[in-house]
């Protein structure tokens, strides 16, 4: 789908890779990367509820709205609240969106984000990986007063070689022939075993393992994966 970024920008010291595997029945997954200035890169990944044309239209509309909001607000929480206001006024009551909105400052190696009902973020460090699962309602489910109380700002200060892994639920809900789901446990093991890989290889490895698991079973939901990885210090020094 051309609604997803054609290419991701090349940024010094940073590897960025995104991938969306669409289901037969188009889902509402999206991701975007917005470079706002030298020291601010916003990353958003989301899943619009439902399937088919309505989910795709909602997703396209939302993507435009987010591009605009990113230029007017700085805090992920404020942006997400504005997105919620938009969804509450424009979408049907049974439609909602889960999302991670993250904002990265390269000078501080600092990622701030909020999770709005979305699957957690994997923080992959040299020695181990951990899941970051802050509180936060999905968007469109409640008015801003309720949503604001539920949202938690998270901040992680990354070290060289660290990666952040974002995904949509289609990944853990992918099924094999026996009807078994890929699941969170299998994903955690996979992410842990491959910690040292670069962003592109990391995504390929995940894609391969999921394909081996599902053995050609049709996808019933989109799968979206995004990896942001900081270069190792050594290679950075070598380059400079």
């Amino acid at each position, binding site marked *: 789908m051309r609604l997803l970024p054609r290419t991701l920008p090349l940024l010094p010291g940073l590897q960025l890779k995104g991938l969306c595997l669409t289901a037969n029945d188009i889902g*509402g997954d999206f991701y975007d990367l917005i470079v706002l200035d030298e020291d601010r890169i916003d990353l958003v990944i989301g899943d619009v*509820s*439902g399937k*088919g044309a309505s989910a795709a239209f909602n997703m396209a509309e939302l993507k435009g709205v987010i591009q605009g909001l990113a230029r007017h607000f700085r805090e992920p929480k404020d942006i997400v609240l504005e997105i919620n206001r938009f969804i509450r006024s424009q979408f049907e*009551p049974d439609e909602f969106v*889960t999302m991670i909105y993250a904002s990265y400052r390269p000078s501080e190696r600092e990622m701030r984000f909020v999770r709005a009902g*979305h*699957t957690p973020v994997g923080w992959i460090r040299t020695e181990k990986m951990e899941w970051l699962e802050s509180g936060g309602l999905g968007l469109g489910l409640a008015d801003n007063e*309720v949503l604001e109380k539920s949202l938690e700002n998270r901040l992680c200060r990354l070290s060289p070689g660290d990666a952040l892994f974002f995904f949509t639920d289609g990944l853990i809900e992918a099924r094999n022939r026996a009807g078994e789901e890929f699941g969170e446990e299998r994903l955690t093991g996979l992410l842990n075993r491959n910690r040292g890989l670069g962003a592109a290889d990391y995504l390929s490895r995940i894609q391969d393992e999921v394909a081996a698991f599902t053995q050609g079973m049709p996808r*019933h939901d989109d799968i979206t994966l995004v990896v942001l990885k900081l270069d190792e210090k050594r290679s950075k020094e070598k380059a400079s």
Partner: protein
Amino acid sequence: MSGVEVRRKDVQEVTVVYLKGYLDAHTAPEFEKVLQELVDQDRVNIVVNLAELTYISSAGLGVFMGFIEDIRKKGGDIKIAEMADKVFRVFDLLGFPVLYEIFKDESEAIGKYR
């Protein structure tokens, strides 16, 4: 993929709706039909028993959102009971426990209306 089976049982002023199987974009209309019937009949004290639900997609979760406002406006509610851990995980990630009362037992959920 398998479908969903929707049954209802009236326990005095409360109606329990049982969902069995797989609730997604294709099967959600069956659940919607039953909730619409209940709203039309003004039977709005509802408990949804999910003991036999094996999967719920975003479209399935959307059904709850599509009806809750009308049901609460009429003085009723949807309470959710007996979810399997895997289904609860989906509700929990989305933040549903902030919006809906969730119970381990159906009888406890019914008791909340008394």
